[in-house]
């Protein structure tokens, strides 16, 4: 059952190779135009790509985690999240428990990172923890875990680095062309000018404009495929596609609200796509298959297997395209859905969830909690050094 992923991988890899060819072409023609040698251009493009790849490979997860100001949590900081992640780790058959990070942000968002399953990290926002019930959280974590298990993180990082290299190269080349262009034209006119030069210039300009757009399109195509596949895997792990579907519904409903309501954190989420998705495999609010479509597919599933997802996909998108090869899907057999988990009334639950999340955030920021005899909870910042504190409520002196 788990091997089916591989057949899907091939198509993604072909797309990535397409991007690589695009980068090579861009480098070659820019080199031909600027220094008169395609090989040199190719070489420079490869060096830029190599450096960015190395940085992305070794530091990508750290950069992403620090840019998104995610903080690592211990099991006790948020037992429910830890448990849900562990459940999904077991269901997906991963060997190692991923690190868990929390982002202090009201937006509903989550991502997975780490270059291989051993270095995997799952990060979720505090908003997600507050708004989603257990089944929904499980669906989202299952989706992130699928990215880890299906090796999407590395694939998407490679894709993002290629895209980044193409964008950077095209951008610098266009600057050179505009600001350095004068000198060049004068020189070429003095040497008589040539038809060949003009053709190369035309090709270089066309590539400069088209390559980033094409690369972006390929990137989105790869990302979209991986998203659908991760949804299918999440349904298979949880045996409960409704969980992810209703989580997606909540996420879709909350995005607009966030941008208007919280201008301070908006830049983090509306930052340009390369920075934002640079090393991440997934950002739920900006995933590219329309969320409504993903929800409809999940809700149309009759069972929880890949085959069921494939059938639902065909129904919703109205296509005959086979999402997962039939032979592989048939081998999986039938996989039944499970029932929803009993939940306390939604209102009560939400209060409880908010409390848990706030506690986790206090802990993560190393605040100390002291419960006074009068029931007041005192949160002391790590910079508080005095040996005792007076309760503002009842005036008792509490030792720290």
């Amino acid at each position, binding site marked *: *059952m*788990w091997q089916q992923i591989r057949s899907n991988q091939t198509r993604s890899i072909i797309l990535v190779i397409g991007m690589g060819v695009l980068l090579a072409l861009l480098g070659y023609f820019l080199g031909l135009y600027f220094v008169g040698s395609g090989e040199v251009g190719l070489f420079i493009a490869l060096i830029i790509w190599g450096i960015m790849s190395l940085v992305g490979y070794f530091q990508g997860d750290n950069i992403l985690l620090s840019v998104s100001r995610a903080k690592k949590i211990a099991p006790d900081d948020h*037992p*429910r999240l830890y*448990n*849900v992640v*562990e*459940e*999904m780790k*077991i*269901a*997906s*058959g991963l*060997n190692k428990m991923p690190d868990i990070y929390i982002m202090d942000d009201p937006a509903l968002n989550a991502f997975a990172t780490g270059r291989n399953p051993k270095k995997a990290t799952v990060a979720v926002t505090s908003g997600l923890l507050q708004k989603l019930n257990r089944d929904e959280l499980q669906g989202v974590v299952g989706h992130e875990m699928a990215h880890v298990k299906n090796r999407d993180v590395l694939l998407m990082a490679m894709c993002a680095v290629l895209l980044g290299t193409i964008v950077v190269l095209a951008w610098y080349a266009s600057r050179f062309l505009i600001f350095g262009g004068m000198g060049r034209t004068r020189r070429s006119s003095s040497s008589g000018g040539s038809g060949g030069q003009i053709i190369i210039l035309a090709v270089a300009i066309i590539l400069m404009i088209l390559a980033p757009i094409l690369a972006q399109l390929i990137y989105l195509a790869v990302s979209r495929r991986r998203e659908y596949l991760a949804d299918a895997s999440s349904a298979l*792990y949880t*045996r409960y596609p409704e969980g992810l579907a209703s989580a997606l519904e909540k996420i879709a409903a909350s995005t607009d609200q966030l941008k208007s309501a919280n201008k301070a954190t908006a830049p983090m989420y509306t930052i340009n796509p390369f920075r934002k998705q640079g090393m991440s495999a997934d950002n739920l609010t900006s995933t590219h298959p329309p969320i409504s479509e993903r929800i409809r597919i999940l809700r149309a599933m009759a069972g929880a297997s890949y085959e069921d997802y494939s059938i639902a996909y065909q129904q919703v998108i109205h296509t005959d395209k086979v999402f997962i090869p039939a032979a592989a899907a048939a*081998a999986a*057999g039938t996989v039944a859905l499970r029932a929803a*988990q009993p939940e306390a009334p939604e209102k009560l639950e939400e209060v*409880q969830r908010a409390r848990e999340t706030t506690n986790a955030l206090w802990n993560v920021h190393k605040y100390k909690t002291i419960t006074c005899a009068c029931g007041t909870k005192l949160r002391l910042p790590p910079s508080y050094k005095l040996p005792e504190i007076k309760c503002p409520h009842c005036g008792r002196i509490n030792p720290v």
Partner: protein
Amino acid sequence: MTIAIWVIIGIVVILLIAFVAIYNGLVRLRNQVKNAWAQIDVQLKRRHDLIPNLIEMVKGYMKYERETLEAITKARTLAQQATSAGPGERAKVEGELSSALTRLLAVAERYPDLKASQNFLSLQEELASTENKISFSRQFYNDSVLNYNNQTQMFPSNVIAGMAGFKPGEFFEVTVAEEKEVPKVSLT
């Protein structure tokens, strides 16, 4: 003549490579089954460990539920004795423990004081999660067994499985006894 020899050598080499590949594939699948079984084991043990805490906590509140508490203690003892048994037998005793636990938690719903306690809430989260982990590890185990069994039964790997003694794995099917009777509450 020499061509024939080379052809024969070629065929033998190809067969050897195929044998090694299939054999290794079978070993990998069998190890995955073992690994998955170990996961189930960890989670079942975890549940055995949690139950005394639960009993200790609810005892004070549920003075009149002796029967339910005894049932769960007994089920736990039986389950602990069966830790080295095979999947089939183990599934039976663990299934009974599951239903005893469900009954206890259902009864606990009727005690508002207990339900309001923060300790009980966190223990409940632990129990619910352990229950989930058991079912997820069972799910993964059964998928792995299915995968492995398919390989041991399908041609050509079944030939090698037969020769090297790969035995089919046993599924872990918990048949939880349906809520047979609602436990009687006596608050006299």
